[in-house]
């Protein structure tokens, strides 16, 4: 291959590379745009959220809602995605890189030439340094494929579809919701209407908080503060309120309860504190408002003085005739009331009220009442709540444990302690079938320096016949009597035998 041919081939490859670069760059820009759009809508709620925050600050500051044109809201909706898309495109453009090898590789991939163009381009660039027969053969081999590449155009590569990711879709929905909420608030709190509303509100309730003002504007009545009662007494209190003979409006009654001036509320609190020792944790002691008695110790000085004592009502006001009072042993409680008393309190109560004639009268009244009603009531004693055995920590104060159902013993948390909690309840199957784990083997290595033990060289030599006993034979030392015994044995005279011979010498 001549130098002219090499230069010609390089020029043709340059042309191909530029052509491919334009093609791929355009494709990359389109791809980045679609990817950016797919991800940019994640930032759609930013604009409406900022507007909402601004509007909230204005409302809390007494300025009223914003009154922007529709295009401002639309601009807010697209502001986040547009900014995010711009940043994404800038970042993608910085990270985008396209090498000459990739440009020529596009032709190789499309033609299926197994990198011949890229290889030839590389070998041509290094032709001055190292050239072998195979280098030249590879370059010449690529020449025909360069012709084919020049006559073709790169096929358009597939672009990602215009689509929104799941997150972007959710974000877009959230942005629309925020935008609609902002618009709604803005229409409700237009500055002209807000001025009159503000004046009325200032007249009616000078010390109202901005939150209550906002609620008034939104058309909601301010919620009365909740009476400080245990949660379990709420249904009974509501029913008691419903069964009041007077037709007092409910809001007033609620307000009365809220002020804490009602006799029942005050009594209930005072009783619960006084009975903490005898009936701890009995919710029924506190759930019924009690009626004050003459001999009740004045525990709450203000509450009974503010409200007049209510006439006793045995028909429907039975729950109100207090069990709290009966806890003092002086009540006129009926059997219904006693049924609400915990069992642990009843022996004491029975003992304390043994001589009380009022209780007997109450029972007689109840029997008469049952007769007049014409129907026999079921014994409500059976429905009394069982003893609270919940061992879980109680909430602070006198309030009963709202989670205490009185059933069974320790709850689930308690049961998770102790030895059963340490037992692995879920069996883990052996996933490798047929192979038992051999267990861990511990290898202990000790470094020991080998010691040199010098040994004299043994020269082989001819062995002479043995002349003496081999080695030293140690004779055992005999005791004197043993020596004399041996001496006698060998020195005794032989007894004469008939044969004249034999015997040991």
């Amino acid at each position, binding site marked *: *291959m*001549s130098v002219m041919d090499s230069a010609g081939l390089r020029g043709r490859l340059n042309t191909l590379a530029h052509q491919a670069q334009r093609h*791929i760059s355009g494709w*990359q820009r389109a*791809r980045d745009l679609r990817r950016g759009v797919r991800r940019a809508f994640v930032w759609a709620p930013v604009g409406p959220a900022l507007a909402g925050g601004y509007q909230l600050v204005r409302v809390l500051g007494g300025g009223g809602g914003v009154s922007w044109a529709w295009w401002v809201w639309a601009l807010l909706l697209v502001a986040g995605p547009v900014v995010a898309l711009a940043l994404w495109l800038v970042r993608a453009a910085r990270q985008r890189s*396209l*090498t000459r*090898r*990739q440009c*020529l*590789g*596009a032709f*190789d*991939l499309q033609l299926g030439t*197994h*990198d*011949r163009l*890229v*290889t030839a381009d*590389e*070998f041509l660039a290094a032709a001055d340094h190292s*050239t*072998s*027969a*195979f*280098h*030249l*053969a*590879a*370059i*010449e*081999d690529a020449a025909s494929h360069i012709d084919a590449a020049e006559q073709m155009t790169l096929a358009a*590569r*597939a672009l990602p579809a215009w689509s929104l990711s799941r997150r972007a879709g959710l974000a877009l929905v959230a942005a629309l919701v925020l935008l609609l909420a902002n618009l709604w608030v803005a229409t409700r709190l237009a500055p002209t209407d807000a001025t009159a509303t503000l004046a009325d509100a200032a007249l009616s309730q000078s010390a109202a908080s901005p939150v209550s003002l906002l609620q008034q504007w939104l058309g909601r009545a301010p919620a009365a503060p909740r009476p400080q009662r245990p949660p379990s007494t709420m249904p009974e209190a509501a029913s008691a309120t419903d069964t009041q003979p007077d037709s007092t409006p409910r809001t007033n009654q609620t307000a009365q309860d809220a002020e804490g001036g009602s006799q029942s509320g005050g009594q209930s609190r005072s009783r619960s504190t006084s009975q903490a020792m005898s009936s701890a944790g009995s919710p029924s002691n506190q759930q019924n408002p009690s009626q004050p008695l003459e001999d009740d110790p004045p525990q709450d000085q203000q509450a009974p003085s503010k409200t007049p004592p209510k006439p006793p009502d045995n028909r429907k006001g039975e729950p109100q005739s207090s069990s709290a009072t009966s806890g003092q042993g002086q009540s006129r409680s009926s059997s219904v009331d006693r049924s609400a008393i915990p069992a642990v309190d009843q022996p004491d109560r029975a003992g304390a009220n043994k001589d009380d004639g009022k209780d007997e009268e109450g029972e007689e009244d109840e029997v008469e009442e049952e007769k007049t009603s014409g129907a026999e009531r079921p014994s409500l004693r059976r429905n009394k709540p069982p003893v609270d055995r919940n061992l879980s920590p109680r909430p602070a104060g006198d309030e009963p444990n709202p989670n205490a159902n009185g059933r069974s013993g320790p709850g689930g948390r308690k049961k998770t302690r102790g030895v059963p909690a340490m037992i692995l309840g879920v069996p883990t199957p052996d*996933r*490798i079938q047929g192979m038992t784990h051999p267990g861990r083997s511990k290898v202990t290595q000790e470094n020991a320096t080998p010691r040199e033990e010098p040994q004299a060289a043994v020269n082989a030599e001819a062995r002479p016949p043995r002349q003496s006993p081999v080695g030293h034979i140690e004779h055992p030392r005999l005791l004197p009597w043993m020596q004399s015994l041996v001496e006698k044995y060998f020195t005794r005279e032989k007894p004469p035998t008939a044969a004249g011979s034999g015997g040991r010498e």
Partner: protein
Amino acid sequence: MSTSATDAREAAARFCRVYADIKSRVHQMMVGQDEIIDGAMTALLAGGHVLLEGVPGLGKTMLVRCLSQAIDASFSRIQFTPDMMPADIQGTWVLMENERGGHELRFQEGPLVANLVLADEINRATPKTQSALLEAMQEKQVTVGRRTLKLPEPFCVLATQNPVEQEGTYPLPEAQLDRFLFKLVVGYPKEEDYAAILDRTIGDTDVVITPVIHAADIVALRHTVRAVPVPDHARQYAIRLVMATQPGSAYAPPRINEYVALGSSPRGAQSLLLAAKVRALIEGRYAVSVDDVRRVALPVLRHRVLINFHGQSDRITDADIVDAALAAVRAPLEVAS
């Protein structure tokens, strides 16, 4: 310059011709198994060794025997057993009587000293005997006592092992496995191949394979393979592919980080490019391409990755790991989509 290019083209054409001749000779006896035959011949021409793995009866030993018959070279077969010692395959010094009636120590060469060595059921030998192959496979020499014996060129070990009968076997250590260029997994033949297999094996006619090439020609072909240049992008791709099998590397995908305990060594990259050079010549090209590296990646890398306990319990195979590496590494020519 043009003359040089012509020489290269002629050398490549001769390579392709010889390759096709050997393959046709082997196909006189072997039916199907094209990938296995290509792999064995690629390893032979690239100067590597082959580990054939498959259940009994698939023709592993026959393939090696046919290959040795197609090449006019010395061939020896070693049936590995647990009681085989290194001296049994390398050779040993024996006391022999000379012409003058005296005695002298002579080196008796073992069966390892041959051009083609069939190491049948190599995993039945003890690690001591298996390690005797290390020097022979890598350095192409055998050292016994104070004597080092150069093995004849070409030297190629074609070992077989059975993956199912693992009782009483000694799995090859990593150092031994790394010395094999290819690990070829021999599968069952196709349905259409069964008839031809039965006709050729149970008939009364013996198939005689005549050699088409001498051992010295194999050495020349190996030089031709070595002369094939590797462009930068193909070399870069091979390096990244090998690094992708190494857990914790920059190119390793999460699957490899999770399941691989040990990745391929640089010897894997050498093997990749050597085998890719043969593939390029076979396909009539004069330089290695990325596709060549991709095609030889599985047999080259599958035995060089060590799957950890999690991978074994999740039934991850070495082929899965190599596939994961191939999917993770993008060719330098490709534009990210």
